[in-house]
């Protein structure tokens, strides 16, 4: 998989070119599988062209932002590539977001079009050929702005729908090509590989789906559970690559059948840290090592533990060639503890800009270095260990939650005076969201379940605090009156046990 971007001319974007090269190499090989549907590479490119034509006829063109609100599916992949074929940029909208959150994102980014799997009164119904999947296209008449063309935007991912954390990571075509080419020099995924896919495409797409298709691999879309379904898919399709989260590996490790999934040559874990117990259980069950990978949307996957996954199983591996890692603000946590500090990374394929407020990567990066927000260390052999996070973002099963966003929702409730949202360690999720709130007045009356319900009507479920504790006051700094944010695990909230559904 290689492309010299400078040589491309005309209407073929770099990512479409990579797919075209992959197709020329194996037109009759299977690209995508979902249930009983099998799409060859030649069919996939034809399908993309057909859908792109439908979109073009309805006005989708160069520089347009197209929100895509679609579940994991062949159609989702086809629609993404079709938007790129039209010269547009895709803005994925996760399926678990509430209507309020979606409206907020749409109001902020002001897309030109909105594609969804759900109909609306102003949407036009279009049927995706071959796979017969309907999708609903809505055009927004107002504000037809376009992004700066030199950015050649392909993808904009938003991690929050409210102020305080609303950024939108812009990834250009060239950026994505650099990112996946660098990564695949390590992963070596190619035409002989079949990948079993269980994660959400709204959260994972660039360094995964795009990489696999650009490399000519086959992708089999699988339900994420129960374990027997994943195993059945692996065995039926003779899959060679498994890319999943620690939770999926925990389910698989607990499987009691005799199946060995022996065709898997590489199992990659991402989204949150892999518990060592899961690694050991999975290894004992299948005789396979899990390779942890580390990265964020701004940088791509910068570390993958491909060389010593067993010996250094708690490490995310060495940095991918072409990248650099630096530990800054070194601290020593204990006499015999290794030094650790803030993780900075540098390398190809880093993001191009934040969308809103707009800031180019050059304005954010420090001489090319990006502050990951994580704390870690590097051993004498160059293996990176992620120890935690010093920034405020809460990582719930790989999905980012900005405390400020949840606090804003809580603070809007008339009974709430002030709120403080922070993380709490969770063996299954990695972290969960918890909150402390003060009442707005002595007369205010509300119970935890009501407040959680209120949050649920406004936030995606993973953002809703698992527990809410009522406190007299929120700790703040003396000088600036900023909330003193708690670290995960430092203060376990037991919560008020009044959450009784149906009573």
């Amino acid at each position, binding site marked *: 998989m290689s492309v010299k971007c400078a040589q491309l001319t005309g209407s073929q974007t770099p990512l479409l070119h990579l797919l075209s090269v992959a197709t020329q190499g194996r037109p009759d090989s299977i690209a995508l599988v979902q249930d009983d549907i099998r799409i060859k590479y030649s069919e996939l490119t034809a399908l993309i062209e057909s859908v792109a034509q439908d979109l073009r006829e309805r006005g989708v063109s160069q520089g347009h932002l197209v929100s895509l609100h679609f*579940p994991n599916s062949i159609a989702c992949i086809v629609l993404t590539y079709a938007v790129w074929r039209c010269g547009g940029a895709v803005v994925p909208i996760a399926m*678990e977001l509430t209507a309020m959150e979606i409206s907020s994102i749409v109001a902020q980014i002001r897309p030109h079009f909105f594609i969804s799997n759900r109909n609306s009164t102003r949407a036009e119904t279009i049927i995706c050929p071959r796979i017969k999947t309907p999708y609903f296209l809505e055009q927004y008449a107002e504000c037809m702005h376009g992004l700066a063309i030199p950015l050649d935007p392909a993808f904009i991912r938003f991690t929050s729908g409210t102020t305080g954390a609303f950024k939108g990571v812009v990834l250009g075509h060239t950026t994505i090509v650099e990112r996946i080419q660098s990564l695949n020099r390590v992963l070596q995924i190619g035409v002989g590989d079949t990948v079993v896919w*269980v994660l*959400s495409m709204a959260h994972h797409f660039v360094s995964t789906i795009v990489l696999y298709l650009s490399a000519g691999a086959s992708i089999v879309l699988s*339900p*994420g*559970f*129960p*374990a*027997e*379904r994943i195993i059945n898919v692996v065995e039926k399709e003779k899959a060679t690559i498994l890319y999943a*989260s620690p*939770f*999926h590996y*925990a*389910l698989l*490790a*607990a*499987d*009691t059948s005799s199946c060995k999934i022996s065709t898997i040559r590489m199992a990659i874990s991402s989204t949150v840290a892999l518990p060592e117990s899961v690694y050991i259980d999975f290894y004992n069950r299948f005789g396979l090592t899990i390779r942890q990978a580390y990265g964020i949307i701004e940088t791509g996957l910068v570390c993958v533990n491909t060389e010593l996954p067993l010996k250094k199983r708690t490490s995310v591996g060495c940095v991918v060639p072409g990248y650099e890692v630096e530990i800054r603000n070194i601290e020593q946590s204990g006499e015999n503890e290794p030094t650790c500090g803030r993780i900075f990374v540098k390398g190809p394929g880093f993001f191009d800009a934040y969308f809103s407020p707009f800031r180019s990567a050059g304005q954010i990066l420090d001489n090319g270095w990006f502050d990951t927000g994580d704390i870690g260390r590097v051993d004498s052999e160059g293996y990176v260990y992620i120890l935690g996070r010093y920034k405020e973002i809460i990582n719930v*099963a790989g999905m980012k939650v900005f405390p400020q966003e949840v606090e804003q929702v809580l603070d809007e409730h008339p009974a709430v005076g002030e709120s403080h949202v922070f993380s709490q360690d*969770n063996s*299954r*999720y990695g972290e*969960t969201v918890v909150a402390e709130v003060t009442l707005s007045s002595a007369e205010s009356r509300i119970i935890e379940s009501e407040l*959680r*319900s209120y949050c*649920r009507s406004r936030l995606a*479920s*993973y953002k*809703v605090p*698992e527990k809410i504790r009522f406190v007299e006051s929120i700790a703040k700094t003396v000088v600036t009156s900023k909330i003193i944010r708690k670290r995960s695990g430092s203060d376990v909230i037991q919560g008020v*046990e009044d*959450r*009784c*559904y*149906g009573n």
Partner: protein
Amino acid sequence: METKTRRQLIQTRLLGFLREEVFDAQVTLDEHTDLLEAGFDSLALLRLLNYSEQHLGVCIPEAQITGDRIRTVYNMAEWIDTLETEKQTGP
């Protein structure tokens, strides 16, 4: 508590949890709705495991999760009730 009564309580609480925390309001749920068909995914499963442990007091072992056991609320309640019974009676 009688098994049937406890099972019904678990069922009611599970329905409330799924309606409040997992599924959109537009999704109609009852105890026999096929949850996998309705969109119950791995994130929802994570939340269910957490809810069962935190609020029903029953730890669901990953090794015992099968499609049939979590296909409907009725099946879930039956299974969780069984786990609770096994915990109380012991070996």
